[in-house]
């Protein structure tokens, strides 16, 4: 059974329908990429899956790990193992990265009926994951994303993902705004987290990331629907020919 199963999903932002019957299945252990032109509904898909207010699924269904994802509150989705890496990570002044992550991790554990992580274990984990994505402990002690460069913010999303260890991650244009070294770091992190139990959906505008993270499948999103699916070669075709013809 697919880990994430989206069936004929329709969703509105305000009064406007953005997703118009999207169907997609991602199995455990698989990495899928969604590509598409601006305004095709890529970010909306991420927000609808994560349960953001104002992004309303009007019909269709989303099953995650056998559960009705759309019936859950955003924090319940997180605790169930769903993660969304944001295209534009948000700053929260006055709340340290460490405090934010520990609060989030313990909130998830509580909802799953697990005990709090000990302070020592958490610090060890935080240090390891910060290292893995080239962030310093100084970054971890600063306000969440406050004073971070664009690349640092994206790497911080990866630190969060690695630390929260979700079952499934949707990464929304995590590659945009990264220089080549940062891109390699991020891609390396994704590859490291790839496992038979974990699924990924990479939302991206360019195939560049897919040179480093080899997807199992590539889908083209256009007009709120998947209009084409294929193997990794589809990404290259898109890069060569543009979305015009393929998305038509």
């Amino acid at each position, binding site marked *: 059974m697919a880990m994430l199963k989206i069936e004929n999903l329709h969703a509105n932002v305000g009064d406007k329908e953005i997703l118009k019957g999207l169907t997609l299945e991602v199995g455990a252990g698989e990495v899928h990429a969604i590509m598409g032109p601006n305004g095709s509904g890529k970010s909306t898909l991420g927000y609808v899956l994560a349960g953001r207010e104002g992004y309303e699924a009007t019909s269709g269904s989303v099953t995650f790990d056998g559960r009705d994802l759309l019936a859950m509150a*955003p*924090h319940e989705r997180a605790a169930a193992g769903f993660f969304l890496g944001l295209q534009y990570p948000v700053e*929260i002044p006055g709340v340290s990265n460490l405090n934010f992550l520990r609060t989030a991790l313990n909130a998830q554990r509580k909802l799953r009926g697990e005990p709090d992580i000990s302070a020592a274990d958490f610090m060890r984990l935080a240090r390891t994951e910060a290292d893995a994505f080239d962030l310093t402990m100084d970054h971890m002690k600063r306000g969440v994303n406050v004073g971070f460069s664009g690349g640092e913010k994206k790497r911080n999303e990866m630190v969060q993902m690695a630390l929260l260890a979700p079952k499934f991650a949707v990464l929304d244009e995590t590659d945009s705004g990264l220089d080549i070294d940062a891109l390699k770091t991020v891609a390396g992190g994704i590859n490291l987290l790839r496992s038979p139990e974990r699924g990924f959906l990479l939302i991206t505008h360019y195939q560049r990331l897919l040179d480093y993270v080899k997807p199992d499948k590539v889908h083209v999103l256009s007009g709120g629907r998947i209009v084409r699916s294929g193997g990794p070669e589809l990404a290259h075709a898109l890069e060569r020919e543009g979305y015009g013809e393929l998305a038509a």
Partner: protein
Amino acid sequence: MAANEQALALAKEQSKYKWGFSSDIESDFAPKGLDEDTVRFISAKKAEPEWMLEWRLKAFRLWQGMESPDWAKLSIPPIDYQDAYYYAAPRKKPTLKSLDELDPEILLTYQKLGIPIEEQKVLAGVEGARKVAVDAVFDSVSVATTFREELKRAGVIFLNSAVFSDGTFVYVPEGVRCPMELSTYFRINAENTGQFERTLIIADKGAYVSYLEGCTAPQRDENQLHAAVVELVALEDAEIKYSTVQNWYPGDENGKGGIYNFVTKRAHCRGDRSKVSWTQVETGSAITWKYPSCVLSGKDSVGEFYSVALTNNMQQADTGTKMIHLGAGSRSTIISKGISAGRSNNTYRGLVRVGPSAEGVRNFTQCDSLLLGSECGAHTVPYIEVKNPSAQIEHEATTSKISDDQLFYAQSRGLDREAAVALIVNGFAKEVLQQLPMEFAVEAQKLLGISLEGSVG
């Protein structure tokens, strides 16, 4: 069904203000109402000398001729001063040798108040507990002070209820650094009772003292008045840090009941290089109206004001500070964080005044307001009066709404909505909260979260 829902709503409402219980303690009351006889009654109860009584009567006569000021951005219903008790004291033995002799109901009350764990230990006399001196003022009189002996040995004379019917007098002698936080819990318990404690703290040359007050009251439908006076005097090179965590009962969602918290707080930085720091976390009360102030007459003296004022539902707050710069080189810092939710109104009002002979004065003011929801109000009213051209005055102000982006971000990482709000609000208030002693900062953080429960729909 409707009744069931009502009961559920009521239970929910009651669970929000966790300090809303009242304790069944036998009390001595003064006769209801306020006239010269009431004043004489209190004075007699405290066995005061004649001059004290005269001083009180003079104040009373002056007060009778005064009108309630109306310049604040507050809507205050007329207060019937005759419909209240002005003195209520737990009935007990005349002197207490130890906490064991305390009315068990009172001890139970402190437990229910959630007095910080460290302090509970202190109250319970647990060995090895961190030394925080706790003074508990119940309605009008102080019932127990821990560490009196130890403080005396440290050279701090700590006379409770000696001068006024209620409140505290602290004198820290020259060169003494008070070795622990001094802490007072104020509790209005009896019905229809006002609380009018007076606190005077004097730090002699080179002395240091840190003082914290916490306040709660039972949940009652009538409004109750808290009109206290706190005065601080710092001599040469002395420093006083005065922190308040105010959580008087705020009234219900429709503004019924709650404490009127009308308090005068002023400090005199009399000596050169003296310093007074006010920190306040104001989450309770139906109406909060106070301006902890500093008269900076010492050369190079320093005044600080750090404030978090949170209003929810129908609460009103008009609070801020006055920094009166008279001494050359005196400096002041004002950091005010206002948080408004529900249908509440929250005003920062602050005066920075520089006298003509005060050379080289500096002031920095920062006022940030955070709005939760669309029916609340935040207002910033700075008054700046500079009569010396060498002064440097800075004023920064921001008003923002709690951002949907931040809320969603925290929720998507696993926090429920209320936890997300609490986290973001605590981040907003951090600059002020970190001024509080550690254990009280933790309590204050929790308080901010609890006070906002249900405020973001």
